[in-house]
């Protein structure tokens, strides 16, 4: 079916502003993605999947300007021993990065995978993104696969002793970064990937994660505090038998963030948890869009998303659990909640379940509410001042999501960032 004229025009204008990189061995995947993109067209305001989030600034040819943030604070995860891979405005910075050699993992820049005769990533690049385009199109991810200028390929073969930290830095107020990472976790292997830092004025990031049988991946991401940035991220994850994927995202500020998680459980007894905690003020707009497909027996999936909104901030949650025919003994859980600290903020939620198997346990809930006045009075009656009591209750509200971070030290760092945010916004 032909695209509406306006959509086609917008899509071509965006494509014209970009250059298809010399893709080498990824060329075919890039061209296929470009063809997909042309067929779908970029998101517009009338698209059902973009009903609550205006895609305009993500789609327009030039990136809107965003100021460089300098808080003078130590970045998140700074206190931890980790392997650092640094990108400046979406370009790998070898000088600022650590040596990419580490036992139990192979790391290459996407550019370099084609220099080898055989490289595992050649078959993965664009594959999970393409799978993730049905049943709902995700055109910004196709655009990413076609036009990504950089990224890394991470193959986890053992149990690396340190987490791998993708660090993004922002140096140009009009930067438009497109990064594409591919990750493969081999059978029995286990690793942690951390992501943080203001990436660019506009950031389009895609990560494809293929977890083999019995492999496991922990992912913890911190977005912020660069308020003026715009970010659209996609994570496409495929899980094999008895594998595990646990992802948590902290988002602090941001005029526009859309994080999509597309997870496919293809092997029996696999476990996938995706969680997020965000705090926003004023023109903050944050969108978590999740699609989890159960296509195997006895798998567990869990979605926990909590949002604290104030001064007119907007939070969006679109989460779906699709249980395919035959995916018996599925255990699916989904909760999305917002804490509205005033009457101007809003939370828009669309929780969905679609189930074609008859022996499953799926639950979902979505709430939005204010601070519990009874609890607030109880705390104050014990001598805790109103502001401190409100912060305590706010952190308690976020706790269920933060608990999804398994590493206690990293979780403590996340809580400290949230506390700092609350103390700055009184």
């Amino acid at each position, binding site marked *: 079916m032909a695209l509406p004229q306006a959509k086609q025009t917008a899509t071509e204008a965006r494509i014209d502003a970009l250059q298809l990189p010399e893709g080498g061995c990824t060329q075919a995947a890039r061209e296929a993605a470009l063809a997909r993109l042309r067929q779908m067209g970029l998101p517009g305001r009338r698209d059902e999947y973009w009903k609550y989030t205006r895609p305009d600034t993500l789609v327009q040819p030039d990136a809107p300007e965003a100021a460089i943030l300098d808080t003078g604070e130590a970045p998140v995860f700074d206190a931890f021993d980790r392997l650092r891979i640094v990108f400046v405005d979406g370009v790998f910075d070898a000088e600022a990065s650590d040596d990419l050699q580490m036992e139990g993992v192979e790391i290459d820049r996407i550019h370099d995978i084609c220099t080898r005769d055989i490289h595992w990533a050649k078959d993965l690049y664009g594959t999970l993104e393409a799978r993730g385009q049905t049943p709902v199109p995700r055109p910004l991810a196709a655009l990413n696969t076609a036009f990504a200028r950089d990224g890394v390929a991470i193959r986890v073969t053992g149990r690396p002793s340190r987490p791998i930290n993708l660090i993004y830095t922002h140096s140009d107020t009009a930067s438009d970064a497109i990064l594409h990472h591919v990750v493969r976790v081999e059978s029995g292997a286990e690793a942690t990937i951390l992501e943080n830092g203001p990436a660019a004025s506009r950031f389009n990031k895609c990560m494809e994660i293929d977890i083999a049988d019995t492999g496991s991946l922990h992912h913890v991401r911190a977005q912020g505090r660069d308020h003026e940035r715009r970010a659209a991220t996609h994570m496409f994850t495929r899980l094999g038998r008895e594998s595990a994927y646990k992802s948590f995202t902290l988002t602090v500020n941001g005029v526009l963030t859309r994080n999509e998680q597309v997870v496919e459980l293809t092997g029996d007894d696999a476990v996938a948890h995706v969680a997020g905690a965000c705090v926003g003020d004023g023109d903050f707009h944050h969108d978590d869009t999740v699609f989890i497909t159960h296509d195997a027996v006895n798998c567990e999936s869990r979605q926990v998303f909590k949002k604290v909104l104030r001064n007119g901030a907007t939070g969006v949650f679109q989460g779906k659990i699709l249980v395919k025919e035959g995916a018996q003994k599925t255990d699916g859980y989904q909760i999305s909640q917002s804490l509205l600290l005033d009457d101007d903020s809003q939370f828009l939620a669309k929780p969905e379940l679609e189930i074609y198997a008859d022996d499953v346990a799926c639950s979902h809930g979505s709430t939005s509410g204010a601070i*519990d*006045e*009874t*609890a607030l*009075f*109880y*705390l*104050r*009656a*014990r*001598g*805790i*001042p*109103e502001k*401190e*009591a409100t912060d*305590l*209750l706010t*952190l*308690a*509200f976020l*706790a*269920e999501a933060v608990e999804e971070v398994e590493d206690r030290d990293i979780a403590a760092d996340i809580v400290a960032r949230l506390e700092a945010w609350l103390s700055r916004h009184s």
Partner: protein
Amino acid sequence: MLEIKNLHVKLEEEDKRILKGVDLSVEAGSVHAIMGPNGSGKSTLSYVLSGRDGYEVSEGSATLEGADLLGMEPEERAAAGLFLAFQYPVEIPGVGNMTFLRTAVNAQRKARGQDELSASDFLKQVRERAKELKIDAEMLKRSVNVGFSGGEKKRNEILQMAVLEPKMCILDETDSGLDVDAMKLVADGVNALRDAGRAFLVITHYQRLLDHIKPDVVHIMADGRIVKSGGPELALEVEHNGYGDILAEVE
């Protein structure tokens, strides 16, 4: 210690008068009890004194050691030494009992210009007090009152009282929902805190709590006023004859 004079209170939302001129004076070192039928205004008095929203004081005053309670925020009243043991302690998921206690202790110390208690001193103090009240370590680790039985919630109130060491303690129907053994435990906790510098106001429906916490003065409250005051024998009279006789006599 606590001086209440001609206190008139109505609900903020509707034009309903609840307290209609309460006069009460509680001296340091004493235990006063307030008894009275349902709807007489006992719990409202405790809420108004601790600063809960939703009430409007139209007349009268309440002071704690001479300081005007009614002009203070709830947290200021607490720091000044007022403590309300809630009839229905609130469950707060996600806030650990220990975090809550330490935050409260240190907030009060800060308000009084004292240094914060060190983590080890605090822990030692809480553990000792908890042991006396038969509160196990597991309960301290859990979220505030979440999953606690009725008895555990009330013991947790007394633990907070013991750790915060207030001057003026108000117990709002602390005996409700307790079996005999639990009531004894709570009463022992309260009795251990009795001293010359501290006063108690015990609000209850029944005389049996007063068997364990012996009051110096018993007041009968009815229709928003204290209608009769006397010694402990007044509580026994209520127990035997109900409120009917006393109210008739006052009429």
